[in-house]
């Protein structure tokens, strides 16, 4: 039995991990120094969710993938130039803050509103995907709150594998403690899945997919609705960088035997 799913991927942008991040405090609370100048990426775990969504849509004929993305419009445009070349999707853009110091509850409310307003939405075919955590706030909370807004009670987090069985049930592998997976069987959509890394490599850039996607991406960005997302009720006392600098002792020109002895002594201490 082939089901044409409506797969909605929630994913936003984060600063390039190679950038040095410095917290600053402004009138509305903490943020990053030169935040709008930092090069951005699609959040890595959300990226995995997007690739898994495209893979599922390819195997389930008639399925469609939306990418619902909340972030500053100019930064979204920059990131979409790359992401749009990876897999086919339709962008729903929301213009608002995507930093780490916003509240997951406010982000989830904005995303839920956008998903509920999708034309032709059929909840019996709805699968909501996202990263199980972001690389900014790292809360791992947005998707569950979103599920509550949408009235979905089958939620899976740290997902590494999704299989659609012949009878339409979903077999899902979730990461749990100790390097193990919990295996669950869900009777079908609707469901919310927060993806860990999954098993798919990052797709190579495909200019043809990029051309097709960009026809929809630019209008979506132009009509992106402005949303206010902050952290109401939260007062930050401080945001600091860790004092992590160590006085590194560099051991050069030592024989492997001597190094090995030192390492073994250290391990046994």
């Amino acid at each position: 039995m082939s089901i044409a799913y409506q797969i909605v991927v929630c994913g936003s942008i984060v600063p390039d991990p190679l950038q040095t991040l410095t917290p600053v405090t402004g009138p509305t609370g903490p943020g990053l120094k030169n935040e709008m100048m930092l090069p951005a990426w699609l959040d890595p775990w959300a990226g995995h969710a997007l690739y898994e969504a495209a893979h599922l849509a390819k195997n389930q004929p008639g399925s469609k993938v939306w990418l619902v993305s909340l972030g500053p419009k100019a930064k979204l445009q920059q990131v979409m130039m790359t992401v749009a070349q990876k897999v086919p999707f339709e962008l729903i853009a929301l213009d608002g803050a995507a930093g780490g110091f916003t509240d997951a509850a406010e982000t989830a409310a904005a995303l839920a509103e956008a998903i509920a307003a999708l034309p032709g939405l059929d909840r019996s075919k709805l699968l909501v995907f996202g990263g199980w955590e972001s690389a900014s706030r790292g809360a791992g909370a947005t998707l569950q709150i979103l599920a509550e807004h949408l009235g979905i009670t089958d939620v899976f987090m740290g997902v590494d594998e999704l299989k659609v069985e012949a009878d339409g049930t979903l077999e899902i592998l979730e990461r749990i403690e100790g390097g193990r997976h919990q295996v669950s069987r869900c009777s079908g959509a609707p469901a919310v899945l927060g993806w860990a890394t999954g098993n798919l490599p990052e797709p190579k850039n495909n200019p043809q997919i990029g051309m097709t996607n960009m026809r929809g991406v630019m209008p979506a960005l132009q009509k992106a609705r402005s949303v206010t997302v902050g952290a109401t009720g939260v007062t930050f006392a401080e945001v600091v960088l860790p004092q992590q600098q160590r006085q590194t002792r560099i051991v050069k020109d030592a024989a492997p035997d001597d190094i090995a002895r030192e390492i073994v002594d250290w391990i046994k201490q």
Partner: protein
Amino acid sequence: METILFLAHTEADGTLAPAALEALGAATSLSTSLANARFIVGLLGENVTPAAQQIASCGAAKFLGVSGADFAPARYASDATAAAALCQAAEATLVVAPATSRFNRCLPGVAQRVGGRADTHVTQVRATADQVSVSRWYYRQRMEGTHTRTQRPWFILVDPGTHPAWTGAAATVAVEPVAVTLEDAAKRTTVTGFRTPAADAQTIRPDASLLLVAGAGWTKKQADGQTHVPEAEQLILDFLRLTRASLGSTKSLVDLGGEGQAVLSFLSHLNQIGQTGATPRHPKGLSTCCHGEEPHTVGWRFINERRAISLDPNCSWARGKADVLYVADAFAVMRKVNELLAA
């Protein structure tokens, strides 16, 4: 006045895991610091009596429980229903719970359901007489923030390994049952089992005192112009067998598998440390064949003593990220290390 609910789920044997006892330590500390706070315990699981007896002397005014076969598996719908019922029965304003995979999955949704807010991955909980604040990390352990909240109930999910575990005597205690009826819609999902690597292939050991991290260098061409992947595998597995260390890897090494290159066969994304991987807690860490770039080393935030073996004296480990950097061939060093450990 705050009402603190310590919320925990039981393990398969009905007792509480160390992570739950650590969260209980944070909760009891809160209840003694806050003026006039009420302290209640809420437990969910198939049978909560052993857990209640285990923590009977924690000073709680009341023990509430949701139990039954429906609440044995870690399933969002049933866990969320049970947790919301416990929260409402306790009239909780602060909910302190362990950040286990089971609670990370359901409690943010429960907070939304009961009109509250949740903070996850909390590493420190502080209280003065009238104010609670929590600390947690942002941008993948690159900066730490401390904040307070006005919303109630406030769910605080305490990360394992961040607080001392509560200790106290076991005793007999009465658990007040909270009745919860699950609708059929809450049973659409069935937990059918667990996948665990075979005992000799289980390389992730959260309780190990040492983390060994393997970088992509293990699969690269060596001085003789050849790759030595089988030897690398054997050296790493021998080291893990001799030390019972936990194995981590860099993203680049794990990704090689997806790109069709020769890889270490026992590595999966579950071993990945860093920006898109885990941030484990171990007293010591030894990095091998890895340059220590920032996306990787953010995963080392909670490794206390760090040493690295790399051929590059200018790698990132040398710039204040490791305590000791050995500029050497990891194959030669690890071969000798294994010999010494086996002796």
